[in-house]
């Protein structure tokens, strides 16, 4: 079934526009950024927004707009790598657990209970503190904790699908359990996990920028929104633009992802 | 004798994706004091919507027109405050699914008491005593303990008794019963029906009984009105309608119920399914399923017209229907 433009829910359309624009900026930052994001201009320290620098300059004379644009590359990458590993491990483990049921399901249930008892951010921060700060370690930490949520969604969904006729038919035709799980059950169970993935991307950006702000994620002088906000936090009264504009980028991107998530959920609901 | 309730030209439409659909289409009927009126029809015929429209309980996106005269006052034009006095006080309602109509998170006592609080001047002690009395009235043993329990701790039949107790709390003059026995086991059904009839006699109230079960109508009702696709297609005293249906639809309905004391004959059944809300056919809504249908039926919608024996029918071919009788065709 194809959707005509009018039928696309408004949140999906708006979110799609926001994220589409974000992706373009993320892939071609140099095309849009007027300056080099790390070039320091000591003749233009802490300049307020002007025609030359629409978002002003920071305390090193770097152009804030160019840094915000270049940060799209990093932050969109966080949205992707911060979720894709959780998603991949989660759906595989969830499918296996859902199919196997019984003891595997019980053990999995305990793991879920254990993980949700820890504040997500605290656990991620604790893991990053063991591994050391940096983006790669942050991705590892997110994957270590995040897969549980995807697995829980898929396991529940597979348990439902397993009882339907076509799964029996697959078994009756002599397909191996693996084939039944990954060719038949998983594709039918995956939509809610994909909706969650989109919403999770918004969370990953919030979390990635938070760790950047705390100095545990992307490391300066990399242009990343959280890092930029941290850079400007001591100049809020004298140079608000250093921190405020990167924050706007976070809000818009996070909003984009969560609108797409809401829109997708709406489309799926009305189709049912 | 003046009717207790007079429904005139009641119509209910829903806003359904822009184009309104009509669930109840210009129906009129009377309920006499102490009378049990059966409102019969298949699901989707508009019986339940009729009851809820009378009480103005329809959701916001629907529109109700017409008038419902209750003791000289029109329920449709009353203020909310006036309506609250009637609702649950003079006119009570019981629902099909006691499992969903009782609030699962409140003890039964609270749900009975809130009716008493709204419609009586009883003190707390008086209300407590009345709660016990009501539980006895509807035949729930061990009332004192059961009042503190929650709906999920009752069986289906007992829950329906609770709902009846709530409905009767303030001695209503009219009970609107929306398929009160459909969700129950057959043996429990009989008990609940008997209870409602006994209470009708005891409290001298009128009852409008919505059901799709003709057996229930035969056992409980004085008069009946048959609904099809939002309209009343036939009405009259129960014995008369059962003896001689004037509308092809009624004939089909009666023919699909096995009757005792008649010759063995093949059961009539009605081919097809009733039309959905959005796909009502032109002319008489029943014509696609009717063996008596002619071009006239496909073109024009018949009005409800008085017939013999206090009956009325909305059918161009009542005479042919009567002539065909109830034997299998």
């Amino acid at each position, binding site marked *: 079934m194809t959707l005509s433009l009018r039928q696309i829910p408004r949140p999906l359309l708006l979110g799609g526009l926001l994220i589409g624009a974000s992706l373009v900026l993320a892939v071609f930052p140099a095309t849009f950024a007027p300056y080099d994001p790390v070039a320091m201009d000591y003749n233009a320290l802490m300049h307020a927004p002007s025609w030359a620098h629409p978002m002003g300059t920071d305390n090193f004379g770097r152009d804030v707009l160019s840094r915000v644009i270049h940060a799209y590359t990093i932050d969109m990458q966080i949205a992707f790598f911060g979720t894709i590993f959780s998603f991949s491990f989660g759906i595989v483990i969830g499918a296996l657990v859902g199919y196997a049921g019984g003891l595997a399901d019980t053990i999995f249930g*305990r793991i879920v*209970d*254990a993980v*949700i*008892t*820890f*504040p*997500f*951010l*605290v*656990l991620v*921060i*604790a*893991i*990053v*503190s*063991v*591994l*050391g700060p940096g983006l790669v370690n942050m991705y590892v930490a997110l994957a*270590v904790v995040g897969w549980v949520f995807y697995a829980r969604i898929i396991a529940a969904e597979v348990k439902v699908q397993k009882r339907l006729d076509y799964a029996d038919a697959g078994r009756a035709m002599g397909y191996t359990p693996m084939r039944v799980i990954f060719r038949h059950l998983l594709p039918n169970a995956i939509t809610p996990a994909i909706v969650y993935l989109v919403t999770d991307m918004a969370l990953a950006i*919030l979390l990635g*920028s*938070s760790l950047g*702000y*705390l*100095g545990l994620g992307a490391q300066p002088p990399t242009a990343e929104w959280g890092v930029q*906000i941290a850079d400007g*936090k001591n100049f*809020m*009264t004298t140079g608000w633009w250093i921190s405020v504009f990167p*924050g706007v980028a*976070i*809000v*818009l*991107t996070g*909003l984009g992802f969560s609108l797409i998530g809401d829109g997708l959920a709406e489309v799926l609901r009305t189709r049912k | 004798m003046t009717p207790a309730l007079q429904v005139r030209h009641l119509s209910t439409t829903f806003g359904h994706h822009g184009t309104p659909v009509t669930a109840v289409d210009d129906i009129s009927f009377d309920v006499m004091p102490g009378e049990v009126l059966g409102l019969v029809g298949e699901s989707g015929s508009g019986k339940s919507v009729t009851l*809820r429209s009378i009480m103005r309980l329809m*959701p916001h996106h629907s529109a109700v027109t017409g008038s419902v005269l209750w003791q000289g006052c029109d329920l449709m034009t009353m203020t909310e405050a006036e*309506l*609250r006095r009637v*609702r*649950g006080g003079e006119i*009570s*309602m019981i*629902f099909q*699914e006691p499992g*969903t*109509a009782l*609030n*699962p998170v*409140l*003890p039964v006592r*609270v749900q009975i008491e*809130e*009716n008493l*609080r709204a419609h009586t001047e009883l003190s707390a002690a008086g209300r407590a005593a009345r709660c016990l009395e009501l539980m006895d009235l509807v035949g729930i043993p061990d009332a004192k303990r059961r009042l503190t329990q*929650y709906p*999920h701790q009752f069986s289906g039949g007992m829950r329906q008794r609770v*709902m009846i107790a*709530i409905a009767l709390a303030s001695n209503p003059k009219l009970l609107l019963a929306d398929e009160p026995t459909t969700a129950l086991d057959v043996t429990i059904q009989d008990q609940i029906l008997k209870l409602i009839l006994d209470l009708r006699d005891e409290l001298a109230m009128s009852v409008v009984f919505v059901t799709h079960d003709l057996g229930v109508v035969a056992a409980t009702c004085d008069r009946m009105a048959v609904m099809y696709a939002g309209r009343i297609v036939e009405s009259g005293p129960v014995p008369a309608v059962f003896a001689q249906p004037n509308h092809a639809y009624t004939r089909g309905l009666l023919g699909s119920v096995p009757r005792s004391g008649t010759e063995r004959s093949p059961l009539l059944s009605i081919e097809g399914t009733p039309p959905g809300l959005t796909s009502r056919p032109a002319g008489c809504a029943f014509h696609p399923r009717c063996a008596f249908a002619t071009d006239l039926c496909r073109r024009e919608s018949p009005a409800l017209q008085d017939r013999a024996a206090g009956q009325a029918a909305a059918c161009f071919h009542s005479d042919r229907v009567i002539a065909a009788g109830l034997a299998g065709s």
Partner: protein
Amino acid sequence: MSLFFLRRLIQLIPTLAFILVVVFVLVRLLPGDPTSAILGDRALDADVARINHDLGLDRSIPVQFVLFLKAVATGNLGNSITLKLPVTTLIAQRLPVTVMLTVMAALMSLVMAVPLAFVAALRRDELADSAIRGTFQVGLSMPVFYLGLILLTVFGARLGWFPVGGYGDSFGEHIYHLFLPAFTLALSLAAILMRNLRAAIIGVVGAEYVVFARSKGIMPGVILMRHVLRSALISTVSLFGLSVGTLLGGAVITETVFAIPGAGRLMIDSIYGRDYPVVQGMTMALAVVVSLTFFLTDVVEAWLDPRVAR
């Protein structure tokens, strides 16, 4: 009810045990190792051996686990490397601050979410609904450190209505100092709760038992409070419980932004200072707080919904 309470209390035991296991696994089995995290890459072998010994990392894993359990059981979570104080003492000092911040934020989010959810649900698809949902949608996408920084600058530094940091000395001062941080934390939770509660209210308003209640002729206020709100709150309460983890995570950041001497701030400082035992102890303490909250919200849920407490 009391039986449910007891059973739920017993269920806390395995949860607490799991918390210990996860914390233990976190330290020993992850690819990084705390010793080099503490000492940095250019540490002397002798120092590495000493720290390894201090942390018990030179024993076999099962032995370490037994020692770890024994230490926890005797209330010994090790000593802070930088502050030279027992971790338990630090928890006792700092955790109450974080708990107070979180409780304030939770209350504020309820105060915001419940009335607005009612307005949004009852004025569904009207202007008020769109405005409330739009505002919260943006609030939900706003990271706490950013919102905190802006509020701190505007209401603390610029307008001077609130202190720009610290915790104060009396209960009244605590509340005054924590007002902005708690509001910062509350906004995103309020957004989540409002959304859930709005959907729940819309569902409940159309429920048969609400129609039946209306058919009894009782006052609309009674219907809303007794029939609609109570039922709608049930799902929101469990969501609220599940969100406390997020709230505590947010508290860690908020405390850093507002310079509040709480557990979260200490945890971040300890990470910078590579004070490993403190990070471990705080992680454990925060998880215990969450599991106790789960317990409390379950009890509230059972109180709201008698079907749960069977």
